[in-house]
């Protein structure tokens, strides 16, 4: 029986305050505008927050849009300006962080990122430093939405993967269930009332959530079908006619993990220079443009092929599971509503139609 705690809605701010004593708490905050959006921001005492699904996933907790890998300074000897001392500092900056009210598809993102960043031949020290200090409290979904399809790809409205604590909304409050030892430890120290008596109610709510989902198609041979489509460029061209090759789908995706490295700043200035790692966007032609100007993926169809194939065939080839969590952000945030589900289904059904 895992540790469970219960908290009333009014008790949440106190809970957050408790958490933010030792950690930076990232909570979803509403950004009012004609087009309203929800983004994760460091929570401070008295700051408003919401439990809606965030427009931008909390990937930045482990893979920030831009981080300094190395900061370097060249210190010149006034007497002899020719010899220059180089000071380097490549210690990863990591801060104990709690992601509050992520969604199962966000949390599962961390698991998807862990594989290449930690379980590969070399673990990325920067990612590792942050990942080890991260605690994820995930709010399970009580219903699906028009763009979610987590249950198509092995996830679900209450899938625990990547989370330390699962939080479920009940009629009069929230029950928090510890998943990992780190989660349990946090709950024990949280001083909240015990939630064991509400455990049964929690399971019913979670099962009910599954009921609201639209039946998922079977994607078991999606990996093979998508791989087979690799050489059919016409297919990809027709699928991406309307794509604008901007970066909305990749930057809003909780599982995209490609990055670019650039040097900025002047080594000899007081602030010194910095080697930056920032998100990269495989849908942009810059991703594969070579110094000569040649580009292996000049057409956007090839770039789309690369994105979809990576998530549905190459990643599964390496790690055995899709790297798409079905959060649907690439669909809801796309200026032309390009639907990755449609592409995968078209790839799967294409041979049936051909037969």
């Amino acid at each position: 029986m895992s540790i469970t705690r219960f908290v009333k809605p009014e008790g949440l701010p106190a809970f957050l305050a408790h958490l933010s004593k030792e950690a930076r708490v990232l909570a979803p905050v509403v950004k009012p505008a004609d087009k309203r959006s929800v983004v994760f921001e460091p929570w401070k005492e008295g700051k408003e927050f919401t439990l809606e699904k965030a427009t931008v996933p909390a990937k930045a907790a482990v893979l920030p849009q831009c981080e300094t890998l190395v900061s370097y300074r060249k210190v010149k000897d006034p007497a002899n300006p020719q010899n220059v001392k180089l000071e380097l500092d490549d210690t990863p900056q990591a801060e104990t962080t709690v992601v509050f009210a992520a969604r199962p598809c966000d949390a599962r993102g961390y698991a998807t990122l862990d594989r290449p960043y930690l379980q590969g031949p070399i673990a990325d020290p920067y990612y590792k430093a942050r990942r080890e200090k991260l605690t994820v409290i995930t709010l399970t979904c009580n219903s699906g939405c028009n763009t979610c399809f987590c249950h198509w790809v092995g996830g679900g409205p209450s899938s625990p993967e990547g989370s330390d604590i699962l939080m479920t909304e009940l009629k009069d409050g929230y029950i928090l269930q510890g998943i990992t030892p780190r989660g349990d430890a946090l709950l024990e120290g949280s001083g909240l009332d015990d939630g064991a008596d509400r455990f049964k109610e929690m399971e019913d709510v979670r099962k009910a959530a599954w009921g609201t989902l639209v039946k998922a198609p079977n994607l078991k041979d999606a990996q093979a079908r998508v791989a087979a489509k690799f050489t059919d460029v016409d297919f990809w061209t027709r699928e991406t006619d309307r794509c604008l090759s901007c970066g909305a789908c990749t930057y809003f995706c909780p599982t995209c993990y490609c990055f670019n490295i650039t040097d900025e700043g002047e080594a000899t200035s007081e602030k010194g220079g910095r080697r930056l790692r920032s998100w990269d966007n495989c849908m942009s032609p810059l991703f594969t443009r070579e110094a000569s100007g040649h580009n292996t993926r000049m057409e956007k169809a090839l770039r789309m092929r690369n994105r979809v194939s990576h998530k549905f065939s190459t990643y599964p080839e390496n790690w055995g599971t899709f790297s798409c969590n079905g959060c649907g952000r690439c669909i809801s945030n796309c200026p032309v509503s390009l639907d990755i589900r449609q592409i995968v289904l078209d790839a799967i059904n294409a041979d049936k139609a051909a037969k």
Partner: protein
Amino acid sequence: MRIGVFICHCGSNIAGTVDCAKVAENARMFPDVVLAQDIMYTCAEPGQAAIEAAIHEHKLDGVVVASCSPRIHEPTFRRTVERAGLNRYMFEMANIREHVSWIGKDKEANTNKATELVQIAVAKLRNDKPLKAKSFDVNKRVLIIGAGVAGIQAALDCAEGGIQVVLVEREATIGGKMAKLDKTFPTVDCSACILGPKMVDVAQHPNITLYAKSEVEDISGYVGNFSIKIRKRATYVDWDKCTGCGACTEKCPAKKTPDAFNELVGPTTAINIAFPQAIPKKAVINPEYCRQLTKGKCGVCAKVCPTGAINYEQQDEVITEEVGCIVAATGYDLMDWTVYEEYGGGRYPDVVTSLQYERLLSASGPTEGHIKRPSDGKEPKNIVFIQCVGSRDRSIGRPYCSGFCCMYTAKQAILTKDHIPDSKSYVFYMDIRANGKIYDEFTRRAMEEYGTEYIRGRVSKIYPDGEGHLIVRGVDTLLGEGVEVKADLVVLAVGVEAAKGSPHLAEKLRISYDSYGFFLESHVKLKPVETNTAGVYLAGVCQGVKDIPASVAQGSAAAAKVLGLFSRDKLENDPQIASVDMKRCVDCGKCIRCCPFGAIKEVEFRGKMYAQVIETVCQGCGLCTSTCPQGAIQLSHATDNQILAEVNTLCQC
């Protein structure tokens, strides 16, 4: 990169209010700077030697000099670094004299500002790239526009220098205004005698192709490769056949044709030769007065012409000439003095311009040298000369002095005495401007030996007294009283302005001109015969008022420039020009549309279209670089990154 920084004291000009040693010390901390020292006089020989030595010793690949304005010594120091084997564009300057030391006494602020200016110079230098000038071959032919005395001199000097000359003259004969003069000051030489031989030389010189009665219609191309369209006006006479015998002139019935060459003093015939020594000595028909061409019936000249040279159907002809550079020697015109109603506004026939008077004095003129009053043909006894008519007069927009009128009036006064011994000449003047060799002595002779009465004052009114005389009323400021002279003839020393159509020609040459139409020289003191447009030179009054000796001198000066330009087989272009990075160009055409010199064209490469810079036409203004949204076209030595380096160094918050 290894940069050397040299801070100049400039004696006390900089060191007076800038701590040069401190600036050098600060400079040592800037990126890539391996050497920073201050020098007493960097531009002087030892200073330059110190830089060259430092380049060798410290294996520098970039130099920053902080001293005076780059507009003065950038070329100097570029040659210095080049002598030391460094590319001349791996060099930057910081202006810490005109922009720092000379404009403020606060030593601490000046030193800090000087340091910052050196810092941004270093920042720009770190982004500079070595640039090589490209060479292109030169068409060693010169176009000279205007065949007055300056144009003739330039043409002869160029031709003597072995250069092919294309000489274009708008009038039917060369010689310009000087050909119209009877005598010239200060020697009272006969103008035709000293100019005539040069005109003949022009006609006979094998290197000179003369296009008389022709105008430049269009100029395209660039220094070394200009393409000129010349419009040969129809003269209705086939000049190859015409021998200049003048038979047609005698028989032509249209005797009332206005004689432009003789400044409309007397009438002439519709077909005529301007004056006996005209070059080319060929007849020309004035289409507006020729009865054959206006009413369709006459044809007398065609009948009498021994060689059948008359051709009424002749049309204009446009010829294209390729040349390497151009000399503009288009001379001047007299301003329209009829704006002066007080002098009769042109209604009184006996009020004539100085040039008309020259034609009256000239033996080849309509009156064969006898001075006659245009109204009644009588010989005038009292002749009044009025100076500064349309010069030094801001009220009609002519504030400048026309330079040579005081001298030719003295000459005309002397000649008048010779022609009419018992005549009396009066000269109303403000100041006598006689600043040439034996010029003042010449005007003294006019006053003392020839009894010309010089009255210092302006004339307020000229009016006929009803008895055939002209009352000239003015004031004698030296006596402080009004003066009235009963004159038989009044000669106005009319002011000078640029030849008609100069602004239009300037636009074709792509040179600038001032509000009076005179062409703008590159530098009023140091480059009077060059313009800001490479390959276009000036000579004579088209650049500004001057007398014959100065015009001739400028003719030779322009020729010297041409010969200098053509002394090399290949011309080097200025490498600070734009270039297109084909990888980034999306052929949106914005740069092509905004380039003032049409120096960018669209080229096709592997099936796609790109912009490309014509290296010899690009002048390096950088308009295209700031117009291209994605920075695909960059002006070398002023690229976006170079300027951004300076901006980022200053604004780093």
